[in-house]
């Protein structure tokens, strides 16, 4: 049995408002194994970013983990760490890449220094060694003239270059887990494919595990091994990316797959799942997708479905039971 890098068990994250507490992440459990890229997909408001912030210990002030555990390499529950202990984990053991390369960098510092800062914080190497290592990595992530670029300010770089800087920043501490939150969404299409190429290369070379958050199945299928489908804070389906794309089980996943633009369906209006993700305060006890589901039954309204494992896939839906084989749809 391979030792998992990250193991999340029954995680609840709740927001505290003046009128009460509301669960934004509801009994989330999943595992990430070494050298595995796990995608998280779902519409906005489903808790993708919140999950990653919980793993980084950086939840907003009014949110907190109210149940469950986040274990990193089988060690202590990260939820119990003090702020000081968190600081030794962040950037070193777990690092994060954000969506907006335009604002993620400090505008007043040369980019090279922003990368090397991670090593200055976490290691005791000499400044010179750190700088060399930084320039080395900058070259590795595909930045030309890295020596000169080291002293550039963020506004002098293009969006794609900035995102490479942000990626280098996440890699330099040689973390075991990298969380990438929509790392290509803010970039235009050609830059997007270059950055994805970079991610694929890194996956080969760096042997790091990655949580890759995106709403774009095209992007996910290029880098991910497995995908988790999140809906309204709950894990509704998980499985290998190819299985999910070809044989989605959960009606929500089916809807997501159907709404991917496809050359074969050119000319037809693009499918969208009717309705919207229920706001935090309007979630009920049954299946979270009940309101929008095309295959809903009476039981779905009141009883939350159990998770069911069908071959490599896991689904949380009343349509399925353990004994079932994959139904043909």
């Amino acid at each position: 049995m391979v030792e998992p890098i990250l193991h999340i068990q029954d995680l609840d994250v709740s927001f505290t408002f003046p009128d009460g507490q509301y669960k934004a992440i509801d009994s989330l459990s999943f595992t990430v194994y070494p050298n595995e890229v796990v995608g998280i997909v779902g519409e906005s408001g489903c808790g993708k970013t919140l999950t990653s912030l919980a793993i980084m210990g950086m939840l907003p002030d009014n949110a907190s983990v109210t149940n469950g555990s986040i274990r990193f390499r089988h060690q202590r529950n990260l939820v119990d760490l003090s702020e000081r202990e968190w600081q030794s984990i962040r950037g070193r053991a777990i690092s994060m890449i954000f969506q907006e390369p335009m604002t993620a960098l400090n505008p007043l510092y040369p980019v090279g220094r922003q990368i090397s800062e991670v090593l200055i914080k976490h290691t005791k190497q000499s400044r010179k060694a750190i700088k060399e290592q930084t320039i080395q990595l900058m070259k590795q992530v595909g930045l030309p003239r890295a020596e000169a670029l080291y002293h550039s300010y963020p506004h002098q770089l293009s969006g794609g270059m900035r995102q490479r800087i942000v990626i280098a920043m996440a890699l330099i501490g040689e973390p075991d887990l990298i969380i990438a939150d929509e790392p290509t969404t803010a970039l235009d299409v050609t830059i997007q494919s270059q950055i994805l190429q970079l991610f694929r290369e890194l996956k080969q070379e760096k042997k790091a595990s990655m949580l890759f958050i995106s709403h774009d199945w095209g992007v996910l299928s290029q880098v991910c091994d497995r995908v988790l489908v999140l809906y309204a804070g709950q894990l509704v389906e998980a499985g290998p990316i190819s299985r999910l794309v070809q044989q989605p089980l959960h009606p929500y996943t089916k809807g997501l797959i159907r709404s991917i633009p496809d050359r074969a369906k050119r000319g037809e209006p693009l499918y969208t799942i009717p309705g919207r993700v229920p706001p935090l305060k309007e979630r009920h006890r049954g299946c979270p997708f009940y309101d929008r589901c095309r295959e809903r039954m009476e039981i779905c309204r009141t009883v939350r479905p159990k998770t069911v494992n069908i071959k490599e896939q896991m689904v949380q839906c009343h349509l399925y039971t353990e004994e079932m084989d994959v139904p043909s749809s």
Partner: protein
Amino acid sequence: MRYFSYKVFTFIVTITLVSLIVFSVFQVLPGNPAQIILGLDADEQQIAQLEKELGLDQSLWEQYISWISGLLSGDLGQSLKYQQPVLDILLDRIPVTFSLAFVSIVLTALIGIPLGIFIARTDGKWVSTILSMLTQLGIAIPSFWFGFILILLFSVTFKLFPSYSYVPWSEDFFGALRSFFLPSLALALSNIAIMIRYLRNTILDQTKMDYVRTAKCKGLSERWIVYRHILRNAFIPILTIIGMIIADTLGGSIIIENVFSLPGLGSLLIQSISSRDFPLVQSMVLYIAVLVVFINFMVDLLYNVIDPRIRLKG
């Protein structure tokens, strides 16, 4: 470059307008200025003499031009009361006012910046709330009254600082520092309060920025993030109020010098007003105003030097 020339252009237009305002205000002096200056019992001949001295027999436009060209060449005319060139009198007084302003601004920075950072870092806690309330008080207290209170406390009650004695720097450095300390502190009070409030707000604004989240993700401590990342960004908006603080300090020194009997520009101004030495008043007002415009102009330029986003755009 275009930005720079626009700034120079507005600078010139503004000081021209300032000089026109000062000039025309003093034109409005009701009655004959020479008569007013000399008083009612002056005879015709004296008045005619003074009119000629003041150039009042020329047209307004000529008077303005000769006044301005005099100012530009450093010839500020004669003071009526002191019977010596205005420039000499000013040169005598300027070091006092500048020392007062300088010490006051240093105090503002030394007290205001650390407290501003402290309040921002303890935001939401009761210390922070109480200190914020106190800054409101600091803004509301009249600086000259605060001067009285300082005199009452430190000179009258505890006898720690001299109250009404001026020691020049050349005579005794520490003595001078002592004689400037209380007036500078009185002058600094409201600026300290403004600095604290402004710094707190900009730091809290910066804290919400994405780059702070990135820095946190690197595992940097809150302290590291505040001092190495946020402060540098927060100081750029702070520059905007630096110009205002310097101007306020110059304006406030007029009153404070009178409270502490410091022989600077402010006390000279008030003396000149009561002795109706209008040429001196006119020149002083213009000089102070032009100085303020100039400082704001410099702050604008400094802005561009400090912020690489503007600096490198050229």
